[in-house]
C-alpha cells in the first residue's frame, strides 16, 4: 500500500512539472453546459449558440459539454471548465436545485453564470448574472385559453389525454400547472381523462397513447409536453384511424409544444389546431452573447433584466406570421 501511494505521487508531480504552464489565453473562454442534444428542441438552442460563436469569431474560445440529463455529471463538467480557466459559464441546467452548487462555485471564482431556457433566480446564496428562458406557465395558459375559446366557439368539450414528459424537468411541471389552471377556469369545457407518463421514452408514449385511446375512445384532445412525443402520437392516431384533418369525424385535437418541424408540417396539413412556440434560437444566442459581455466586462443594458420570454401561440389563423418564428420552420 505504501509503495503504491509513493508511486502515485511521484508520477503525478513529475507530469505537472514538465507539462509547464498552460498556453497563455488572451481569448475569452466560455463554457457551455447543456443538458442533452438528442431532440430538435435542443438543436434549435444550439443553432443560436453556434450563431453567437460565429459572430464573436476568434475573440472567444468555446467548450460545449452535454451531460445526458445527469446532474452529477453536469456539476463535474462545470467544475472541469472552471478549473480549465473558463471566464464565463452559459448553462442549460438539468436540475434547478443541484445546479446551485455549481453557481456557488462560479460565484467563488467570480465567474459570471448565465442560464438558458430554464429559469434560475439569484438569492442570498447564489448570484446569477443573467438568463433567457420561456415562461412556460404563461405560454401554456395562453395556448389553453385559445383552446377554451375555440371549444366555446365550436360548442365542443375537450376530453384531454395529457402525455407527460419527465417530471424532473422544471419547465414540464409549469406546463402541467398552466394546463390545470385553465382547466380550473373552464370547468365544463376541459376535462382531463388520463395523464400518461412517458419519461421521454417513445415506446412508452406510443403504448400509452394507443392504450389510452382504447381505454377511453371519447378522448378528443391530446396535450403533449413536447413535440418530441408527436411522432408516436401520430402513429397511435393513425393506428386508430383518427389522424385526420380538422373537422373530419374522429379527428383528435393535438397540441404539440415548442414548435418542432413535425408540428409545423402537421399544421400545414390542417391536422393540428395550434402549437405552443418557444424561441429556442434566442435562448442560445442571447445566452452566449451575455456570457461574453459579462466576461469581457462590457456593460450592455440589454442584459440587465432577466428575460422571461412569453413565447408565442401558433394557430391556424395566425399561421402565416407566427409559424416562421418556430425553430422547426424550414
Amino acid at each position: 500500500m505504501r509503495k503504491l501511494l509513493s508511486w502515485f505521487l511521484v508520477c503525478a508531480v513529475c507530469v505537472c512539472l514538465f507539462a509547464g504552464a498552460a498556453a497563455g489565453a488572451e481569448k475569452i473562454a466560455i463554457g457551455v453546459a447543456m443538458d442533452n442534444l438528442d431532440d430538435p428542441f435542443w438543436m434549435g438552442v444550439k443553432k443560436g449558440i453556434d450563431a453567437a460563436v460565429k459572430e464573436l469569431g476568434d475573440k472567444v474560445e468555446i467548450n460545449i459539454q452535454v451531460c445526458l440529463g445527469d446532474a452529477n455529471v453536469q456539476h463535474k463538467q462545470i467544475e472541469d471548465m472552471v478549473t480549465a480557466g473558463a471566464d464565463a459559464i452559459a448553462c442549460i441546467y438539468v436540475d434547478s436545485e443541484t445546479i446551485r452548487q455549481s453557481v456557488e462555485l462560479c460565484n467563488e471564482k467570480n465567474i459570471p453564470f448565465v442560464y438558458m431556457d430554464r429559469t434560475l433566480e439569484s438569492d442570498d446564496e447564489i448570484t446569477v448574472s443573467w438568463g433567457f428562458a420561456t415562461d412556460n406557465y404563461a405560454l401554456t395558459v395562453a395556448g389553453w385559453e385559445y383552446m377554451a375559446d375555440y371549444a366555446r366557439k365550436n360548442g365542443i368539450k375537450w376530453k384531454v389525454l395529457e402525455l407527460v414528459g419527465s417530471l424532473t424537468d422544471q419547465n414540464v411541471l409549469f406546463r402541467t400547472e398552466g394546463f390545470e389552471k385553465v382547466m380550473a377556469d373552464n370547468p365544463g369545457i376541459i376535462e382531463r381523462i388520463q395523464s400518461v407518463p412517458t419519461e421521454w421514452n417513445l415506446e412508452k408514449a406510443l403504448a400509452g397513447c394507443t392504450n389510452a385511446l382504447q381505454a377511453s375512445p371519447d378522448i378528443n384532445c391530446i396535450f403533449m409536453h413536447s413535440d418530441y412525443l408527436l411522432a408516436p402520437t401520430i402513429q397511435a392516431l393513425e393506428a386508430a384511424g383518427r389522424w385526420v384533418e380538422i373537422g373530419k369525424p374522429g379527428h383528435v385535437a393535438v397540441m404539440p409544444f415548442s414548435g418542432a418541424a413535425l408540428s409545423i408540417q402537421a399544421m400545414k396539413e390542417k391536422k393540428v389546431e395550434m402549437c405552443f412556440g418557444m424561441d429556442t434560437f434566442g435562448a442560445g444566442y442571447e445566452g452566449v452573447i451575455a456570457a461574453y459581455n459579462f466576461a469581457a466586462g462590457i456593460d450592455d443594458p440589454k442584459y440587465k433584466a432577466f428575460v422571461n420570454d412569453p413565447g408565442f401561440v401558433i394557430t391556424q389563423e395566425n399561421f402565416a406570421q407566427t409559424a416562421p418564428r418556430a425553430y422547426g420552420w424550414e
Partner: protein
Amino acid sequence: MSAAREERPQALSRLDRMERLSEAFYRYGLYIVLLALVVLFYALNSNFLSANNAVNLLLQTSSTGIAAAGLVFVMLTGGIDISISAVMFITAVISTVLTDMGLGLIGAIAVSIACGAVIGAVNGFFIAKLKMTPIIVTLAVMYSVRGLAIGFIGVKTLFFTNAVGAYLVKTRILGYIPLIVVILAVVMALCQILLSRTLLGKQMYAIGNNRSGAQKMGIAVEKRIFSAYVLCGALAGLAGLVSGAQVGQVSPAFAVGQEFIIISAAVLGGVSLFGGKGKAFPGAFLGVLIIMCIENGLVMARTNMYAYTIVRGCVIFVAVMLDSFHNKGETR
C-alpha cells in the same frame, strides 16, 4: 441381494412423480398466469379484451417477441446477450437513414438482419472462441454499439415516417392482420422449427444441458455457440427495424433498458438462464405476452406512473426465482 435391486426402480418413480408434478406446473403455469392476467385486467377495464386491443397487444409484443426469439438461442447454450438493445438502436438508425435514401422494405430488412448478425458475430467471437464471460462482453459491446450508432447519425432524432416506415406500420394483410404481426409469426415459426427440427437446434439444447459431454461427443460446441450469438444479433436487428418503424422516431435513448425486458420475457416464458431449457414458441412468445399484458394492463388500470419500474423489477425477480428454484443454479 437382487431384491434390493428390484425395489429401487419404484423408489425412483416416487421421486419422479413429485418432479413431474412441478414440471407440469412449470410448463402449464405460463398459460395459467396469462389467463389470470387477462381476467384481472378485463375486470379492471372492459375493452381490454376488445378485438383491436388484442391486435394492439400483438403489435406491441412484436419487436420484443422477435428479439426474445433470438435471445432463446443464446440462453439455451447457457449464455446471455444484453447488447440486443444497442443492436435494435443501430439497425433502427441505419434502416431509417437508408430508407430515406430510397432503400426498399426488403432491403431494409436484409440490412437490419445483416448488421445485427455482424454485431452478434463480434459477441460470438469473444464469448465462443475466447471463452470470455458473456455478461461483460455483451455489456461492453452494448455501450460500444450505442456510442458508434449515435456517432454515425450525430446527436439527432431521426423520423422513420418515410414511405417504408409507414408501409411497414400501415399495411394489413388480408384486410386486418398487420404486416408486423405476420413478421413476428414468421420469425417465431422459423425459430421454433430451427430449434425443434434441425440438428443445430438439438445441439444447442445439448450444449446447454451438458457442455463437456457435448465436447467429448464431438459436437462443434464453439461453432454452435458462435452461431447462437449471430442468430440473436440478427433477430435483434430485425426487431430494431420493426420497433423503429412502430415508434416512428429514433432518438439516442431509443430502446435503452429494453434488454432487461426481453430477458425477463424469455425467463417468464420458461427459457432457463442456466441453459438447456426453453422454447421460442410458445415459450418466449408467452413470456412477452405476459409482460406486455402487465404493461398494457397497468396503463389501463391507470396505476401510479412510477410503479412501472417497480412492477417490472418484481416480475423479473419472481420469474428468475422460479427459474433458479427449478433449475438449481450455482451461486455465481
